[in-house]
């Protein structure tokens, strides 16, 4: 496994070191961190965080067009809801995010839900998610996460939220929603797994059984290529995906396995922004002409994996005693220029000193693959 990771890194490095291909600098992304005091007082559920002196920070991305019209939209993902009564903290944080999005002024053009609404893909979890989503009355777009999918192979998800991939043109921007989670190699049939067992292996981020499940797959790569065929090379594209469209850390599927093919398709376009979930942490990277922004979860933050992109300013070390810490949502402005604002419910988001950095311990840390899920009866 370490050799595979090294190989992936070398491949990524080759792309990153290509001096010709960089995102168009005239439309460079700026991340803004600003506190919205009004949201604290305006949100009943914010009381706990507010009393600790923590202020909300929203994941916002501004796409500001130099020539065209700019617009604002919001991102929420990774709510990981359990069935009713199991984890009220996750429900509270989801409701808080949805209320804040509905309360945005001026209001967002749409909200994109980036996957992992449910934890185990169960009907009662997706039902709870649907109920909470009613709080948001602006236009809603959806892409699925692996936790929504592998109990019934996306049946319930697609019935509620529609299929993917999809695309739409909004104020001069081609917006694309991908399904990077529904194309896992079949790890269940030969082992005669029940739907619950199949989902169980998918549920563990560091599981070894589901393997390299994140990817677009051949048909979707073709769809993407066809979709963009008539789109001018210098016009903005925003691609939503659950997983990052580059190779950050394959063992946790912080990648799509066919990221090199994706880059070949997107490479000719000079203004591409990928916005992704799944990693539950502040992330920023540039691959060729594509810039990539990793968004916060509302549920819990994942630790930084080995090999945090150099362009990322890591988020702060999180207080595990405060379930409102290290999580949140996002507000983005779209157009020629995509700006992202992380709405994290605390004062400081980005770490400057090692002692405050969520990636600060990475230098000493070596991680190894788990074993128990490889042995009978697992």
């Amino acid at each position, binding site marked *: 496994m370490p050799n595979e990771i090294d190989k992936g890194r070398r491949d990524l490095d080759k792309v990153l070191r290509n001096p010709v291909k960089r995102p168009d600098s005239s439309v460079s992304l700026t991340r803004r961190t600003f506190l919205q005091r009004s949201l604290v007082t305006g949100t009943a559920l914010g009381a706990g965080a507010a009393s600790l002196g923590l202020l909300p920070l929203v994941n916002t991305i501004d796409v500001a067009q130099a020539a065209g019209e700019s617009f604002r939209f919001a991102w929420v993902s990774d709510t990981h809801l359990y069935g009713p009564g199991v984890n009220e903290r996750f429900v509270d944080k989801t409701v808080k995010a949805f209320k804040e999005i509905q309360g945005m002024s001026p209001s967002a053009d749409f909200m994109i839900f980036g996957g992992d609404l449910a934890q185990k893909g169960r009907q009662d979890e997706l039902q709870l998610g649907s109920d909470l989503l009613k709080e948001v009355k602006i236009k809603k777009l959806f892409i699925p996460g692996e936790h929504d999918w592998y109990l019934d192979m996306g049946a319930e998800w697609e019935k509620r939220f529609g299929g993917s991939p999809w695309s739409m043109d909004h104020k001069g921007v081609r917006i694309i929603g991908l399904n990077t989670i529904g194309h896992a190699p079949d790890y269940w049939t030969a082992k005669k797994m029940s739907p619950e067992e199949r989902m169980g292996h998918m549920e563990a981020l560091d599981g070894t059984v589901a393997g390299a499940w994140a990817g677009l797959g051949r048909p979707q790569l073709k769809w993407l290529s066809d979709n963009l065929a008539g789109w001018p090379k210098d016009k903005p594209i925003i691609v939503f995906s659950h997983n990052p469209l580059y190779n950050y850390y394959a063992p946790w599927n912080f990648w799509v396995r066919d990221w090199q093919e994706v880059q070949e398709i997107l490479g000719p376009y000079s203004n591409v922004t990928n916005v992704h979930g799944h990693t539950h942490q502040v992330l920023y990277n540039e691959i060729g002409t594509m810039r990539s922004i990793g968004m916060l979860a509302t549920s*819990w*933050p994942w*630790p930084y994996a080995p090999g945090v992109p150099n362009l990322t300013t890591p988020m702060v070390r999180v207080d595990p005693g405060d379930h409102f810490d290290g999580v949140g949502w996002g507000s983005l402005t779209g157009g020629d220029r995509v700006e992202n604002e992380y709405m994290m419910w605390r004062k400081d988001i980005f770490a400057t000193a090692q002692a405050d950095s969520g990636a600060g*311990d990475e230098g*000493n840390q070596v991680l190894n693959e788990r074993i128990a899920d490889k042995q009978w009866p697992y």
Partner: protein
Amino acid sequence: MKIKLSNRIGLLSGSFLIVAGVAVGLVASFSDTAQAHKVKHSPATLNAFDQVFMEQVRLGDLLFHGDPATQKKMGVTLSKTGMACAMCHPRAADTHPYEYPKFQEQINKFSTLRDITNWCIEKPNQGEKISVDSDAMKALEAYMYWSTRGSKLDPGRH
């Protein structure tokens, strides 16, 4: 003693679970007779020692990933939120066992890995804290150390 040992080694084949069970018996028979290091270690003996350790890693891995059957068997409730240790610590990332003992900010005192493990069980996981000497705690410790093997020992680091 020697005959007994070779008999047991002869059984060291087949599934991991059977091997582990035999290995426990082997080590017990050694300690009974205070024979440690009196006889040269054969590869099979060393393998048996390793199996004892890896069985604890396996149990710890299952507990760490919230396996209900293992928790029930060991009589522990590590979480009541649905969350498992591995959900914030995949591959035991950010547990950094190699930094303990140290001053632990959350507990506001000098703490061991076992202390912070219990803090995590009680606070974020809202589970029932376990005895620091319990089998479950030793298994969790085995898993965290094993999973981060190769990391730099740096006790006291914040």
